[in-house]
């Protein structure tokens, strides 16, 4: 029975899960959720995610939500196929993957998602981007990317010299950010730039990127 991913191809969090599934060389059925019609707040979807957010994953009789939890489940279930996302055979490496996954989750995500929301999503709802919010978060992003620049001088990927879930979890929001007017944040930091170019050229990322149509010119 196939994995069923309830969400939308252009959604960042759906894309995070899709990328993880492709990295593990697995397939899934994308079941679209009609956000415009408010489907995500209807009982049928709330039964899958009581917080009413996409994506949700069905694997047989197991239903999960929260994209990072789903990605971790996929990485563990299919640990013997595709790329090693969680370093399950080496506890130290696994711990470092967790550290940099938490950095993405706690430090990077709030800042990058605020910027992407303002310039890409707010206009879809007829709202003017709030430049003050963008500016404040760009300042924070600079400091965060300075730490990444320093980290990536001594290690090819965030958790070590191996690609992992910690890098993957950055993909969707960074992808949309690179359609913004502020790409110099990445491009002016040579190690961050090289890391981004490296991970975004992975076949799984390229496949998922095809559906990420927001902000295309």
């Amino acid at each position: 029975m196939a994995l069923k991913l309830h969400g939308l191809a252009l959604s960042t969090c759906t894309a995070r899960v899709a990328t993880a599934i492709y990295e593990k060389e697995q397939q899934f059925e994308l079941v679209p959720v009609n956000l415009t019609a408010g489907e995500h707040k209807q009982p049928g979807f709330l039964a899958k995610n009581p917080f009413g957010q996409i994506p949700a994953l069905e694997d047989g009789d197991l239903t999960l939500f929260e994209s990072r939890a789903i990605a971790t489940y996929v990485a563990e279930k299919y640990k013997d196929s595709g790329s090693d996302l969680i370093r399950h055979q080496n506890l130290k490496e696994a711990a470092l993957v967790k550290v940099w996954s938490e950095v993405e989750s706690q430090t990077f995500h709030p800042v990058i998602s605020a910027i992407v929301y303002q310039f890409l999503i707010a206009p879809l709802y007829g709202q003017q981007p709030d430049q003050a919010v963008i500016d404040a978060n760009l300042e924070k992003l600079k400091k965060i990317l300075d730490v990444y620049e320093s980290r990536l001088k001594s290690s090819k990927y965030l958790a070590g010299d191996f690609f992992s879930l910690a890098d993957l979890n950055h993909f969707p929001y960074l992808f949309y950010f690179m359609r913004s007017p502020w790409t110099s944040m990445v491009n002016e930091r040579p190690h961050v730039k090289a890391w981004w170019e490296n991970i975004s050229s992975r076949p799984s990322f390229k496949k998922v990127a095809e559906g990420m149509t927001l902000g295309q010119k």
Partner: protein
Amino acid sequence: MAGIKLHGNALSTAASRVLPALYEKEVEFELVPIDMIAGEHKKESFLALNPFGQVPAFEDGDLQLFESRAITQYIAREYASKGTPLIFPDSKTMAILSVWAEVEAHTFDPPASKLKDELAMKPFLGLATDFAVVEEFEAKLGKILDVYETRLGQSKYLGGDCFSLADLHHLPIIHYLMGTQAKKLFECRPNVSAWVADITARPAWKKVVAMRAY
């Protein structure tokens, strides 16, 4: 063996997320205080442990970690055979545990931390609480706790029938909020209230609370 060192203070929210995990697993550790008022967490020696300059940082022999929720997961795995099980061998159980740990991190923590800042930290620092913000965030947290109320009617703990990291990660912020007017949000929901009473009564958490008393 160099042993476990936790760099931080019992009064730090994030360090207080790691402390109960260490006590639950019954492992020996040394708490290395960080003088945040003196800015020690922004100095080179601490930045070498956490380049983001935030407490806590953690050492176990030559392994150095930061981010409280990564540290607790490492402790739960490395010391799986000691103390309380905080992770479980069944992959479905772990997946559901992981879902609710993400809920704590992304859904519960932001509004709950905002309330902690307004109702607990500001008075402590002699600053004025913004009650308009309090009202807004109590409403948000209330809606989230409605989902928790339903969830905790289906299972004793958030991740399932056993206490796990998904519950433990909530302890520091819940501890703060139960000392403020926001406690009503937890007390008026019977399943949530019972869960709060249960997890805060655990001996490991009581040890952390005792460390914070001054």
